[in-house]
């Protein structure tokens, strides 16, 4: 029964990882940018929630009403300035520039918030409580909520990208930005919108992380970016639902590892990651091998 419980916990954690990963995947899919500051920006979203809750005393869960739009605007602005000018100099430059951005954010957070960890909504029933099924299986409210949010976010993105006319334009730009220009599309603006979506979703991930674990200035690269990256690679680059599947595989692998030996949690996740890279480098859930 402990194993079943571990697998269920892992599966639910996959929702959190999907929130980390879907924005990373979206930005790579649309503009071929691997945003190495992705995790740090999630942490910024988390700290922003801490600040908003402290100052305005709004209910913890409502902090997203402020955090998501603010981070979306940050995403648009970053894309239109820093990342676009890096893109103009080539794809590799974007790696260096976003790595630099990641360092700047991390050190700025250390400066302002110190290295102490901070939780969001600590002590709330939502954070500590859980549903019990039988004597062994325990479903934390928080993980259930995060999983539901992740599925809702992915459904929303899916609906927007495949069903709306602006989503169609984003896919067109992702396919061939020059041809899109010839059809009158300003691809820089489209890139900005994609980055806004990416940071809006990862800000949710940051808030969720702050409730599930604790925020600290280094969590962005040490945990969030790394897990997002692993989930994206396992699921397949550029595939939205693949990020959920990849997140679930990672989460389950970690929990099974933890069952074997508590210190093997991370190792098990990375072993699965390596296995996928060796056996199916295009990811488990992509149909097309490349492009």
């Amino acid at each position: 029964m402990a194993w079943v419980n571990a697998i269920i916990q892992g599966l639910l954690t996959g929702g959190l990882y999907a929130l980390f990963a879907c924005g990373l995947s979206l930005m790579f899919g649309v503009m071929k940018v691997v945003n190495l500051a992705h995790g740090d920006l999630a942490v910024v979203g988390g700290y922003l929630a801490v600040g908003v809750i402290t100052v305005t005393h709004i209910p913890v869960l409502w902090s997203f009403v402020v955090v998501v739009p603010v981070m979306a605007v940050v995403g648009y602005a970053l894309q239109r300035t820093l990342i676009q000018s890096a893109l103009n100099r080539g794809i590799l430059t974007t790696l260096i520039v976003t790595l630099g951005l990641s360092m700047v954010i991390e050190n700025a957070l250390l400066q302002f918030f110190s290295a102490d960890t901070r939780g969001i909504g600590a002590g709330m029933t939502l954070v500590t409580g859980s549903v019990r099924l039988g004597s062994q299986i325990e479903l934390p409210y928080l993980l259930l909520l995060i999983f539901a949010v992740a599925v809702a976010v992915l459904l929303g993105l899916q609906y927007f990208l495949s069903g709306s006319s602006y989503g169609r334009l984003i896919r067109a730009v992702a396919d061939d930005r020059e041809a899109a220009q010839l059809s009158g599309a300003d691809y820089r603006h489209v890139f900005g919108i994609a980055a806004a979506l990416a940071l809006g979703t990862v800000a949710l991930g940051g808030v969720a992380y702050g409730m599930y674990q604790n925020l600290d200035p280094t969590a962005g690269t040490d945990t969030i970016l790394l897990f997002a990256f692993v989930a994206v690679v396992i699921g397949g680059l550029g595939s939205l639902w693949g990020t959920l599947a990849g997140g679930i595989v990672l989460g389950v692998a970690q929990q099974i590892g933890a069952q074997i030996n508590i210190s093997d949690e991370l190792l098990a996740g990375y072993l699965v990651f390596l296995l996928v890279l060796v056996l199916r480098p295009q990811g488990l859930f992509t149909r097309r091998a490349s492009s």
Partner: protein
Amino acid sequence: MTLPAGELAGSSSPLDSTEAVRPPTRRPLLEAADLTVYHGQLRALDSISLRVHPGEVYAIIGANGAGKSTLLRTIAGLHHATTGSVRLDGADVTGLRPERRARLGIVMVPEGRRLFGSLSVEENLKVGARYARPGPWTVERVYETFEWMRDRRDQQAAQLSGGEQQTVAIGRALVANPRVLLLDELSLGLAPVVVQRIYGMLPQILATGLTVLLVEQDVSQALRVATHLQCLLEGRTTLEGRPDEVTADQVEAAYFGLAGTASIPGEGSESSWPG
């Protein structure tokens, strides 16, 4: 101020009947003046000029590397010109990005089709129509013109054959209701029979009063539809005129740059090349 208004007014009525007969002194719809473009060290275009009038089918021919596609891409805004200007109906568009020019009505069908491969046929057309100017072409009208497309509207563009893709690419440009349609090497990579079919349907499309600037390596196809001809060789104009004004020999000489072709107008001096 020096023009006597009375004389103009008085002369207008007797001239009315002869207006149509008089050779047109129309303003060109699209005008490129003195375009020079470099690809790194290579001068791809050497002060090329052209004037495309409304309703014309203006064909630019030339061998591989003559600068044809560079010229078209520069007019569309995809290349930066070192010197020269591009004007649409008198308005300078030289500094505008490709998407701005497209919205103003300079719409290009790029070389190699360049459809949005993961999008369906219909989605491709809808993207083309998103920033469309008002005009006769709609997605529905494209379906009426190319019946097969309606039945396969939900098919992924990447799965179409080359000829089908080329037709969808033309449809995607048409729904933008271009003022000038730029066609870059329609025949490239297509079987001769398919090229025949595509050029065969052009007159039907052109009957809607479209102005076209096309680039083509396949001279015989270009001559089928062209009302005006300009031949490029190594970035310079070697021949220009109406198809009925030029002889096959002249075209051949201008196309290949054969020696001893003194009769070709527009021949520049060789000394303008660097190095």
